[in-house]
C-alpha cells in the first residue's frame, strides 16, 4: 500500500515557479521539459518556488517578496552553489536534478499543510490607507504624490497621439518570466505604451550558455562540440521567443531541435524556418521593430550584429574554420525578424560546420573566439558604447518591447548593457 501510494505520488503534478538566477536558464528549461514538472508563469499558480542558480545579494529583497506571493501551502528549494538566499529552504546539489526533492516536498505539504513555508515579510501596505484631504483623499490635491506609499498616476505626454493622459510608474523584474533572468526595469507606462525605461539591473550572468566556449580559451577542445553547442543555444533562444508569442507548437519544436542539435542532428531545421512564416510569427512582427538607431549600432554583438548586415565573426579569422571555408551569414535589416532568422541560419550553419570538422583534432583559441553571444576573450569586449534601453523601447507597446528584449540572448543583452565578465 505504501509502495502504491509512493508510486501515485510520483505522478502527482507539481507546479513550480522558477526564480532563475545565474547560469540556470537552460537547466530549468530542461528540468521542465524532461520531468513533466509544470513550470508556471506566475508565483500565484505555483506551490513550490525553485530558486535555481546563484542569486546576487542585491536581488534578495525581490526574492523575498516573490516568496511571499506563493499561496499556502508552499515550499521553497534552492538549486545552486553557495549559501541559500532565503532561510528555511530545501537545498539540492547543483549537479543533481531537483525533481525527486520537489515531488517529496510536494507530498509532504499535502500531508501536512502546516509545514508550509512562512511569510518572510509583514503583509501590510507601505503606508496606512487613510485620507487626509477634505474628501478623504490621500494627497493634498486629487492626483500625483505618494499618498499611501504608492505613487499615484500623473499626467505625462503621450508619444503617439499627443493626449496628455495618466502615466504610471512600475518596476518589473528581476524574476519576471517574460524578461531575461535578472533584468529589472523601471518603466513609465501609459496604458501599455512605454514612455520611459530606466535600467535597474542588467540580466544575470549566464556562464552556462558560454561554458564550452570559455573552456576553449584555456585548453584545446573539439571544434565540432563547440558548433553543436552554438546551434543548441541559438535554437533554445528561438524556442523562448516562440513561446512568448504563444506559438507553443513551434516553441516545442525549437526546443526539441536544440536537444537534437546537441547530438549533432540538424533534422527539421528547414521546416522550422517555414513554420515561422506559416504560424504567423514572422508576419505578426512589424518590420523594423527593434532596429537600433545609428548611434547605437556600435553596441551590437554576435548574431544581432550580423543580423544588421555586418559580417563580423571571429571565426572567419580562426584556423580550422577558415580551412573549412567559413563565411559569416548575415541578414539585412537588423530588426527582430532578422535576428530570429539569423539565429536559425547560424544554427544550420553551425551544424554543417560540426559535420565537416568532426575529425579535426582539438584546438585552443587563446586569442579569443566567437561565442554564441559575441566575441569571447578579446580585449575589445565590453569597451564599446552601451545599449540605451530607453531609446530602444520607448514608444513600444508592452508585447513589442518584450519581443525586442527576447530577440537578444540574455548574455548578449548583459554585455551590450556594459557588463564585462571576462
Amino acid at each position, binding site marked *: 500500500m505504501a509502495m502504491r501510494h509512493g508510486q501515485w505520488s510520483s505522478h502527482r503534478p507539481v507546479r513550480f515557479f522558477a526564480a532563475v538566477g545565474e547560469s540556470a536558464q537552460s537547466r530549468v528549461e530542461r528540468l521542465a521539459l524532461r520531468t513533466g514538472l509544470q513550470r508556471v508563469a506566475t508565483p500565484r499558480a505555483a506551490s513550490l518556488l525553485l530558486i535555481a542558480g546563484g542569486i546576487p545579494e542585491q536581488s534578495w529583497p525581490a526574492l523575498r517578496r516573490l516568496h511571499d506571493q506563493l499561496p499556502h501551502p508552499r515550499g521553497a528549494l534552492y538549486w545552486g552553489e553557495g549559501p541559500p538566499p532565503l532561510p528555511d529552504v530545501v537545498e539540492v546539489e547543483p549537479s543533481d536534478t531537483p525533481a525527486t526533492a520537489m515531488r517529496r516536498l510536494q507530498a509532504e505539504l499535502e500531508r501536512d499543510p502546516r509545514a508550509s513555508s512562512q511569510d518572510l515579510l509583514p503583509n501590510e501596505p507601505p503606508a496606512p490607507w487613510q485620507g487626509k484631504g477634505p474628501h478623504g*483623499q490621500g494627497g493634498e490635491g486629487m492626483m*500625483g504624490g505618494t499618498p499611501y506609499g504608492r505613487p499615484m*498616476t500623473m499626467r505625462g505626454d503621450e508619444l503617439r497621439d499627443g493626449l496628455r493622459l495618466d502615466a504610471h510608474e512600475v518596476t518589473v523584474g528581476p524574476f519576471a518570466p517574460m524578461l531575461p533572468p535578472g533584468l529589472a526595469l523601471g518603466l513609465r507606462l501609459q496604458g501599455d505604451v512605454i514612455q520611459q525605461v530606466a535600467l535597474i539591473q542588467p540580466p544575470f550572468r549566464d556562464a552556462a550558455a558560454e561554458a564550452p566556449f570559455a573552456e576553449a580559451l584555456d585548453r584545446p577542445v573539439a571544434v565540432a562540440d563547440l558548433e553543436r553547442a552554438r546551434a543548441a543555444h541559438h535554437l533554445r533562444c528561438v524556442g523562448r521567443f516562440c513561446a512568448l508569442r504563444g506559438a507553443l507548437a513551434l516553441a516545442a519544436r525549437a526546443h526539441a531541435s536544440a536537444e537534437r542539435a546537441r547530438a549533432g542532428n540538424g533534422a527539421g531545421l528547414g521546416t522550422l524556418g517555414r513554420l515561422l512564416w506559416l504560424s504567423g510569427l514572422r508576419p505578426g512582427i512589424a518590420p523594423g521593430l527593434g532596429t537600433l538607431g545609428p548611434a547605437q549600432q556600435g553596441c551590437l554583438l554576435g548574431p544581432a550584429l550580423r543580423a544588421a548586415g555586418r559580417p563580423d565573426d571571429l571565426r572567419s579569422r580562426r584556423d580550422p574554420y577558415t580551412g573549412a571555408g567559413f563565411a559569416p551569414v548575415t541578414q539585412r535589416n537588423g530588426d527582430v525578424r532578422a535576428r530570429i532568422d539569423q539565429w536559425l541560419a547560424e544554427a544550420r550553419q553551425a551544424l554543417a560546420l560540426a559535420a565537416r570538422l568532426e575529425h579535426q583534432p582539438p584546438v585552443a583559441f587563446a586569442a579569443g573566439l566567437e561565442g554564441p553571444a559575441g566575441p569571447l576573450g578579446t580585449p575589445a569586449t565590453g569597451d564599446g558604447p552601451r545599449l540605451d534601453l530607453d531609446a530602444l523601447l520607448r514608444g513600444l507597446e508592452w508585447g513589442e518591447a518584450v519581443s525586442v528584449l527576447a530577440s537578444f540572448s540574455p548574455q548578449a543583452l548583459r554585455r551590450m548593457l556594459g557588463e564585462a565578465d571576462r
Partner: protein
Amino acid sequence: MSWADAIFWLLAATALLAGWRVFRTDSMVRASFFLLASFIAVGAIMLMLGAAYLGFATIFMMAVEMMVMALFMVMFMMNPAGLNPMSMVHQHGLAIVAGLVTFAGLGAFALSVDLPSRPLPAGAEVTAPLGRELLGPSMLVFESAGVTLLATMICAVVLSSRSGRFGPSDAGSVPPSIDPTAQEKS
C-alpha cells in the same frame, strides 16, 4: 401579486438602485458597470413586456457602450479606481430638486391620465413584423437613422483625431494647472 409582478418589481428596483449607485461610487469603472446593470434590468423588463428582439438588443448594445464608457473613464479621470476618495459634484441641491420635480411631474402624468389598455396579443410574433416595418413602410425613418449614424462616425473621427486641416489640432494648447481652484485662462 403574481410571480410576474414580483419579478417586475425586483428588476425595477435593480434598475433604480443601480442607476442611483452610478453617482454614488468613487470607482469610475464601477459607475459604468452599475449603469450597465441598470440597462440590463430594463432590458429584462422589456423581455417581460414581450419585446424579444429589443430587450436583447438593448443588453447587447449597452454592454458594448458601457465597456467603451469604462475605458474613457479610466483614460480621463484622475483617479478611476476611486482608491483616493473624492467628490466631483456641483449645484447639488438644485440637481436633487430638479430630479425630484421631474419624477413627480412624470409620475403624476402616469397616474392621472387615463391610458387605453390594449395589450400585446398572447403568442404574437414581434420580431418579424419589426423587420418588415423597418424595411417597409418606415424605411425612410430607418435609413435616416442609418445615415445619421454614418455622419456621427465621421464627425467623431474628425473631432477626436489629432491632425486637422491646419495641422495638429492641439498645436499651441496650454496645459492648465493641476490646482482645481485655478481658473482657466485661454
